[in-house]
């Protein structure tokens, strides 16, 4: 019983309770329990995460074509090759453009949805679910729907049908990179898929803002609407916003599925992971260069995260 009560109520209670517990025999078994419960996860983490990372680091210094057990050491040659490779550096530019679109857009859309849903009096749960549902859809499935029915280039594609009502010519959304309509396809797809999830995060944060703040603001003469939003809601959401932005940047770095499925056989619109996939697993099967590219990418993500943490203050704990 004591555990269930302490969990919800307050920290001091558990601080008082713990010295009172009997100590004998617990030490040994708690260590045992620790390993019992964490080892499946730790083993998985080691085998599927740490070993591959280490292996890839090792591969990046070898000439590893068509093999993952190479023998020819080449030092930093692979790194040098990748940094000179216009396709790889181009993919970093592609990513930057993509992130510059998608991060602010998703942030704004999910916050907007959260504000709308939060104000609803009826059917709140319904709309919350409706907006959240796309999160459950796979990127591959959504990419196929986007490609074959919404943004297909034929006259009966959804978008071309709508444009046709206004007398606009059919547009080849994906085949023709000029103008780059493919960005519209990719950005809308990702917005649809992920906005709902971040909306839930914002919704939780909105419901955590004490109503007294709004009452006090109203008494002080703040007008409801933009003024209240700007000076109360937005500052109160700072911690959540920071977390959401960080998650969005990470998600953007991991972008793969929709690019891979929507833009096959192109030389443009390839974010780093797609480019590295073609380097390491395409017909050249160059694991050395692929691994070097992955290490470069990891270092970049590390730097960006540290810089972002410094500016936005994520992880410092104090969010007031």
């Amino acid at each position: 019983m004591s555990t269930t009560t302490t969990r919800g109520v307050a920290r001091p209670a558990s601080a008082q309770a713990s010295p009172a517990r009997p100590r004998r025999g617990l030490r040994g078994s708690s260590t045992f329990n620790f390993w019992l419960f964490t080892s499946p996860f730790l083993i998985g983490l080691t085998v599927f995460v740490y070993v591959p990372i280490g292996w890839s680091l090792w591969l990046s210094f070898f000439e590893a074509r068509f093999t993952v057990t190479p023998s020819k050491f080449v030092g930093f040659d692979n790194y040098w090759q990748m940094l000179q490779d216009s396709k790889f550096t181009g993919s970093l530019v592609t990513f930057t453009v993509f992130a510059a679109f998608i991060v602010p857009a998703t942030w704004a859309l999910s916050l907007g949805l959260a504000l709308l849903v939060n104000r609803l009096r009826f059917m709140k749960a319904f709309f919350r679910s409706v907006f959240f549902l796309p999160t459950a859809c796979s990127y591959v499935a959504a990419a196929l729907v986007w490609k074959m029915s919404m943004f297909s280039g034929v006259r009966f594609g959804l978008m071309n049908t709508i444009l046709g009502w206004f007398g606009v010519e059919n547009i080849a959304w994906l085949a023709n990179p000029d103008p780059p309509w493919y960005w519209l396809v990719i950005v809308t797809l990702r917005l649809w898929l992920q906005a709902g999830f971040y909306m839930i995060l914002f919704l939780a944060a909105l419901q955590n803002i004490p109503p007294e703040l709004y009452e006090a603001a109203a008494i002080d003469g703040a007008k409801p609407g933009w003024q209240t939003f700007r000076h109360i809601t937005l500052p109160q959401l700072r911690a959540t916003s920071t977390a959401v932005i960080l998650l969005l940047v990470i998600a953007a770095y991991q972008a793969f599925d929709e690019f891979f499925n929507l833009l096959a056989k192109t030389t443009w619109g390839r974010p780093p992971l797609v480019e590295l996939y073609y380097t390491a697993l395409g017909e050249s099967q160059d694991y050395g260069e692929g691994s070097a590219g992955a290490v470069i990418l990891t270092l970049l993500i590390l730097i960006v995260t540290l810089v972002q943490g410094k500016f936005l203050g994520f992880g410092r704990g104090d969010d007031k």
Partner: protein
Amino acid sequence: MSAMSSNWDRRSVLRAAAGLAALGPLAACGSNNGRSGGGSSGKSIKQYFHAYGEAGVEDALKRYAKGYDKAAVNTQWITSADYESKLFSALLTDNAPDVFEFHPQIQLIKSGQVADLSDIIDPVKSDFNPADIASHTVDGKIYGVRMIDDPQFFFYRKSVLEKAKIQPPTTLDELMEAAAKLTTGKVKGLFIGNDLHAVINPLIWSSGADTLDAKNQIAYHTEGVKEGIKKMRQLFTSGHLLLDAPTDYWDPSAIVQGLTPIQFCGMWAMPVMQKALGDDLGIFPFPKVTDSGKQSVVNGGWSMFVNAKGKNADLAKEYVKWLWIDQKKYQEDFALSYGFHIPPRASIAASATKLKTGLPAEGVKLFNDFGHFDNIGWTQAMITALEDVFANCVRKNGDPEAELSKADTTVNRELKKLFG
């Protein structure tokens, strides 16, 4: 307490859900373990096929495999659009297929990946189309068994062209004109695939050039090819091409559904088109690009290879001999019952009545008169290099000379590795 008990309810529900989720993969493990489907000796072979678009092919291949009694044959049906990268990465692993279909490419031979099949082919060598033997031969050894030959050309709606008073085009300029005339508010004049890569080789051949010459040196970098690429760019930007269709060039849907009156496709799709359009269907080869060029047809196709590095190489070879050399009934069924393919063996082609009359016979004629077979020295890395040229110069407005030079670097590096 009430809060607590509801908590426990939720947990037990979650636990049950997790339990079910954990059972899922276990159940999957039980069924697809490569040991299923007959076989008395307990040995098993894994074969890879790309996903054929015609109905019934997958079942047919599995049915043939079931008839083999020396080993259980497990068929992997690869639906991915890039069959080659799936295949190449699988070949590196322990899970590699023992037998796989692919096109003849010399890097697989140089790296010792595919086995020499001369001993099983030699006895029936004279029965095969000599070009199909030549395209699989390196230093006198034959490395793959051709299963089917697939000519690729243009299909067109006779009635639509007649109405517009257009003759089947024989030059690229005429094709572009036809595309312009046939484009209306609802229909685009021409479909050559969503990325246009299917016509790279015909464009080269019809410009009077080739991918590689007889000495395995670059032969595609000519003024004619550059002119062709520039014309393709014009065509791409003209608004007369069907682009971003729900299906690609290898699927007959675009012409069958009336999205376009002219489509580049393969003979495999002919039965479906004939069924939908009846006699309102004609074919013509890829038109001349330059005056010195000649109309051309891609004689594509698929061949069986044995993974020399696999654990069951000998058994796999026996299986290939059994199915693709000995079992002529199955070979005929495979070539003619689903899509139309030209049997590479004279004895089967002789009895293939379906290909003797009408449009299929015309297809066979184009195959014989204008066809270019696979060049074993033209490998995947080189194919990709030219696809990049096409992507950058036709779909983007790149300079053909600069892009072809870039491709030269890649192709030369590859040639040096392969031929020294």
